C-alpha cells in the first residue's frame, strides 16, 4: 500500500508540473514521472520479498524478484539520458526556458525562419 501511495503522489506531482510554465519545471515533472514508473515496476515484483536477490545471499522465496530490478536499472539510465537532453533543450535556443510562446504554428515559425 505504501508504494501505491508513493506512486500516486509522484504521479500527481508530475502531472501538476507538466502543466506549469517553463521547461525546467516540465523536466522536473518528467523526473518525478519516471520515479513513479520505477516504483511501480518494483511493486510489480512483489515487495513482500525483501531479501537481496544476489545469488547465495537469500533463500529461495525470500529474495526480491531480480527481473523488475533489471527493468528499473535499464529504465533509470534511459530516463537519465533523455532528461539530460531535455535540460540542454531548456538552456539553448531562446533567452530563457519559457514555454508559453510555443503556441505558434509550424507555418509561422517556418515563415519567420524564411525572412
Amino acid at each position, binding site marked *: 500500500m505504501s508504494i501505491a501511495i508513493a506512486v500516486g503522489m509522484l504521479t500527481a506531482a508530475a502531472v501538476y508540473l507538466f502543466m506549469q510554465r517553463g521547461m525546467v519545471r516540465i523536466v522536473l515533472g518528467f523526473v518525478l514521472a519516471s520515479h513513479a514508473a520505477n516504483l511501480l515496476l518494483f511493486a510489480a515484483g512483489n515487495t513482500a520479498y525483501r531479501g537481496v536477490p544476489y545469488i547465495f545471499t537469500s533463500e529461495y522465496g525470500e529474495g526480491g524478484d531480480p527481473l523488475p530490478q533489471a*527493468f528499473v536499472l535499464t529504465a533509470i539510465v534511459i530516463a537519465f539520458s*533523455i532528461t539530460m537532453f531535455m535540460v540542454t533543450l*531548456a538552456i539553448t535556443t531562446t533567452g530563457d526556458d519559457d514555454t508559453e510562446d*510555443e503556441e505558434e504554428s509550424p507555418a509561422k515559425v517556418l515563415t519567420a*525562419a524564411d525572412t
Partner: protein
Amino acid sequence: MEEILPPLLPLLVGIPLLMGALGAALRKSKRARHIISLGTLSALLAFSILLVIATHDGTVLAHRVGFWDFAPQIAIPFVVDALNSLVLMIICILGITSVMFAMATHEARARFYHPFVLILMAGVAGALMTGDIFNLFVFIEVMLLPSYGLLAMMGAKLGAHGARIYVSVNLLASTLLLFGIGLVYATAGTVNLAELHGRAAEDPAIAVGAAVVLTAISIKAAVVPVHGWLTRTYPMTSPAVTALFSGIHTKVSIYAIYRIYSVMFDGDDRFLWIALLVTSLTMLIGVLGAIGEKTTRSILVFHMISQIGYILIGVGLFTGLGLTAGIFYLLHHMIVKASLFLSTGAIEETYGTGEIDKLGGMAKREPLIAATFMIAALSLAGLPPFSGFVAKFSIIQATLEQAHYWVAAVAVLVSVFTLLSMLKIWVGVFMGKPPEDLEDRALSYQERMHGKRYLRVQAQAENPTLTIGPPTATMSAVLSGERAVKVPMKLIIPGAILAAITVFFGLGAELLMMLSETAAENLLNPQDYVEAVINS
C-alpha cells in the same frame, strides 16, 4: 535456411550499431561516412529481402538471444514472420532514399547525421523483431534518442519548439508504456509476448495493463485524441528528416499495436468497436486538419494522421481480409508518404519555402518533380493505376464484409477530402504563374543555407564560361541567366524511386497482396508465433 537464419537475427541490430559507432569515430572523412551508411543500409535491405523470402510461406523464425538453453522463456526472443520482415524491408528502402536526399541537401555532411540514422535503424530492427514488451520499450528508446538528435540538428535553425514538444510527448508516452509494462508484469508474471498469448482476453486485470501499453503506443502512433504533437513537430525540421521519420516512428508503433492485439488479446472481438471509433475519428479529423493548412509539409503531416486511421481499420476489423488490407495499406502508405515528403521537400530545399502562397508554376519549371508528386498524390487519394487504389479498395471491401457501413462511409468520404487537399497543393505549387520574387527568395535561401562560395560554384557549374568573381557579380549573373534556380537531379531521384515503387505495387499488386495475406494469417493465428518462440 530455417536453421541458418535465426541465429543471425541479432546482426540486424548489431551491425548498424557497430557501423554507427564507426561512423561517429571517423571525424574527418565525410566520404567514408557516406559509404559506411549506404553500405550498411543496403546490407540491411538485402538481409530483410532474404527474410521476406524465408517467411513468405508463413514460416516464423525465432531466436533466443544469448542461447539460454536451460530456461527457454528467460531469454529475449527475436521473432521474424512475414509482417515484420515486410515492414523492415520497406523501412530499409526509405532509409536509403532519405539518406540519398540528405546527401544531396548536404545535411548528411554533418558529423553525426549518418551515425544517428544507423542507430535509428538498429532501434527499428530491434523494435520490430523483439518478442518481449520490456525489450520493445528499450528498442523504442534506442529508436527515439537518435531521432531527437536528428530533429534538433535542423531544428536549431527553426528554434527548438519542435524538438521540445517532440521529446516531451515521446517521453510521456514512454513513461506510460513503462507503467503499462509494470502492470502487465505484476498481473501476468511475464513480459514475454509468447507467454502472454491470449492472457489479456481471459483476465481483465491483464487486459487493463495491456490497454495502458496500447494507449502509450497509440500516442506514439498519433491517433486522434493524441495527434497534435505530430503536426507541430514534423514540419519543424528539415524535409529529409521528416521524410525519414514519416515511415519509421509511427509505423513501428502501428506494427506494435497489430502484434500486441493479435498475440495478447488473441484478436478478442469485444474491444474492436473502440478501435473502429478511434480510427474513424482519426481519418476524419486528420484530413480536415490537412485541408486547413497552408504549407505543403503541414498538409502532408495532417494526412499522415488521417492515413494512420486507415491503417488501423485493419486491426479494428480483425478478419483475414481486414488484416490483409491493413497491412497492404501500411506498406503502401510508408512508400507514398515518404515520396511526397521528398518531392515537396526538394522544392522546399531549392526555393526556400513550402508555403503554397509563395510558390507557383512548378509544373512548367520542374516537370519531373511535378510528375513524381502527381503519381504519389493520386496514389495517396486512391486512384486506380497506383497502389493506393488496391489498398483503399480492399479496406472498404473488408469493412463492408463486416457490415460496418459507417466506417466504410467515412473511409470513402475522407478519400474525397484527401484528393481535395492534394489538389490544393497541386494548384498552389504546381499550377499558375511563379511569383515575381521566387528566384530572389530561392537565391537568398541558398546563400543562407550553403554560403556564397557554394552559390558561386553552382553558377560556374551551370555556366562554365563564368569566372569566379566577387559574389555579388556572380549572383547577378546567376539571376540574369534563364532558369538560374532549378531543383538538381540528385534531389529529384529519391522521391522518383519511391513513386516508381508505388506504380509497381499498383500494377503488380498481386505480389504484395499475397505477402500481406501471409502476414495477416500469422496475426490471425498467433499459435505459430507462440510455438516458434517456445521451441526456438
